[in-house]
């Protein structure tokens, strides 16, 4: 393998790694605070893409306004899903809320199929972002650079939010114990609503950058990134934001590098990713950065 070829693969790997990482940090935030595997996260992600799509086609918003509008709507959607599907089950056994999450995921997918139609649709690509950069012989998309910047910004923002603000303190308290947090005078409902709002906005942001890179949207588009994000969150350790980013990055890098170095085994790629997962968990049962 020549040096340029390797660098191109590396660039591809970094690009994909950051896309997965961005999806994973939104996933892990809700997961860490509420201790709920939000199976519907991928579908909230999907809905965000359709909000953008209809913002542009139906209301003829300019693309940037449409993005903002979608992030806002998705946050609202996330909050209402929490109110309807998760809040009533907060004191029920854990498994009930898992089921509720699976059911919500089904509901959103089927709702989208009936209302938006099952066919793949093209996602709008603004000319400004649709550029290729040449660095030597390596080619990188402008969108990729923006994605990396946004991911790092999101990571820093979340770190600030969780460790430096009062709300963050409440979130961390919740992640340990709901009842104790309530006794300490934390408004549990408000904190959870806030967490869902932030988590869903992050889902929307990651969805937009995903769709800018892979511009086709359909009702089941969230399934694949959703599972990848879940896997990344688990590899990184439940609730660890930097862990989720690392997990997503690892998955992206391995996906590319396996195909690069072992092209004959490209078909086995997903098996390798899950083998890696199993090994990480066997040696560190709570993930790379997780607490016991």
């Amino acid at each position: 393998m020549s040096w340029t070829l390797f660098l191109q693969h590396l660039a591809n790997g970094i690009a994909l790694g950051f896309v997965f990482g961005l999806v994973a940090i939104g996933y892990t935030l809700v997961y860490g605070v509420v201790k709920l595997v939000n199976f519907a996260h991928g579908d909230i992600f999907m809905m965000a893409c359709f909000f953008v799509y209809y913002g542009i086609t139906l209301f003829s918003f300019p693309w940037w306004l449409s993005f903002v509008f979608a992030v806002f709507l998705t946050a609202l959607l996330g909050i209402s899903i929490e109110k309807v599907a998760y809040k009533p089950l907060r004191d029920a056994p854990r498994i009930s809320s898992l089921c509720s999450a699976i059911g919500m995921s089904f509901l959103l997918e089927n709702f989208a199929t009936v209302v938006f139609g099952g066919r793949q649709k093209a996602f709008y690509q603004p000319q400004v972002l649709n550029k290729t950069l040449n660095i030597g012989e390596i080619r990188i998309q402008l969108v990729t650079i923006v994605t990396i910047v946004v991911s790092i910004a999101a990571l820093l923002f979340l770190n600030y939010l969780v460790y430096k603000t009062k709300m963050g303190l409440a979130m961390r308290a919740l992640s340990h114990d709901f009842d104790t947090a309530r006794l300490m005078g934390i408004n549990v409902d408000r904190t959870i609503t806030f967490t869902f709002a932030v988590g869903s906005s992050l889902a929307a942001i990651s969805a937009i950058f995903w769709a800018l890179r892979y511009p086709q949207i359909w009702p089941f588009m969230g399934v694949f990134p959703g599972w990848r994000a879940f896997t990344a969150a688990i590899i990184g350790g439940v609730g660890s934001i930097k862990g989720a980013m690392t997990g997503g990055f690892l998955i992206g890098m391995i996906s590319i590098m396996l195909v690069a170095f072992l092209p004959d085994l490209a078909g086995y790629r997903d098996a390798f990713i899950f083998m890696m997962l199993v090994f990480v968990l066997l040696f560190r049962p709570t993930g790379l950065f997780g607490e016991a």
Partner: protein
Amino acid sequence: MYRKKSFWFTVFFVVIFFLFIQYAQTHFDAYIIRIMNVAAIYVILGVSLNLINGFTGQFSLGHAGFMAIGAYASALLYMSPELKVMNFFIKPLIWPLNQIQIPFFPALLIGGLLAACAGFLVGAPCMRVKGDYLAIVTYGFSEIIRVLFNNLQSITNGPLGLKGLPTYTNLWWSWGWAIFTIFFIKRLIDSSYGRALKAIRDNEEAAEAMGVNLFRHKTLAFVVGAFFAGIAGGLLGSLVMTIDPNAFNIMLTFQIVLIVLLGGLGSITGTVISGVLIAFLMEWLRIVETPMKIFGFTIPGISGMRMLIFSVILMIAVLFFRHGILGDREFSWESIFSIFKKRDSMEGE
């Protein structure tokens, strides 16, 4: 006395049920028979997953993988060599699989046993990995199976799958296995093993302190659950007549999880009811997708409506009947007797 009475009631009920099956097999039309077969397979899957998820409290998402193993192993054994040649037209099947053909029942059993071996492999890490981590490991396992089956073309025919499988599955096979599964798992639950499993579910540390061997019991649940999932996979393959790796995806597992949830975690009776209910409901709901005439207005059928209504029903069930149809209660003859008893005594007053 009740025990003896219950035993004879059960025998009587099973005999009546199989008479009904015999009648259904010969008199009902193929469409209803097909749904009844699917219902039986759902029952096997639901009850076996309930053993792992409901009774032992290990959240497993690996059922589709066990099914795939059972379906492929049995199909490769009961297919005729000519059929194999026809199927494997891109890459030939490896020796000795291409020569072997054995009857349906032993093929099914071997499929189940291989799935049980896989169950052991998946159950083993249970000792270290728990909760959501376990869920993702089991999901990973079923994905690995799917990827391997897609790639190992000379054994599984890859994504082309196995086609034109002979249809051995009939109501006798499917409901016979379903009844067997119910009885087997019921006996297991009522034995000392079952009490140990429930103890693990309720409090793992306490169970261990009481001297329950965690490793042995957890893997036991996985092995038994996987065995029946493998059998169900074999039955499903022979019913649908075509299998391929991608049919055994996470959606299938979710469907089984939903059956268990609707029925109630830790209730075999509930799982049986919900398995049958879902099989029929999914077909019945097709009505909403065909054009309807109501008061002279024609409402065109909307594709996907059926699944939307299904998911709404599901959400309602999860939110308002959060313990499923029966919670963790079970059907028993005693409860039936006691109803009659009460009535008798009331009438006596």
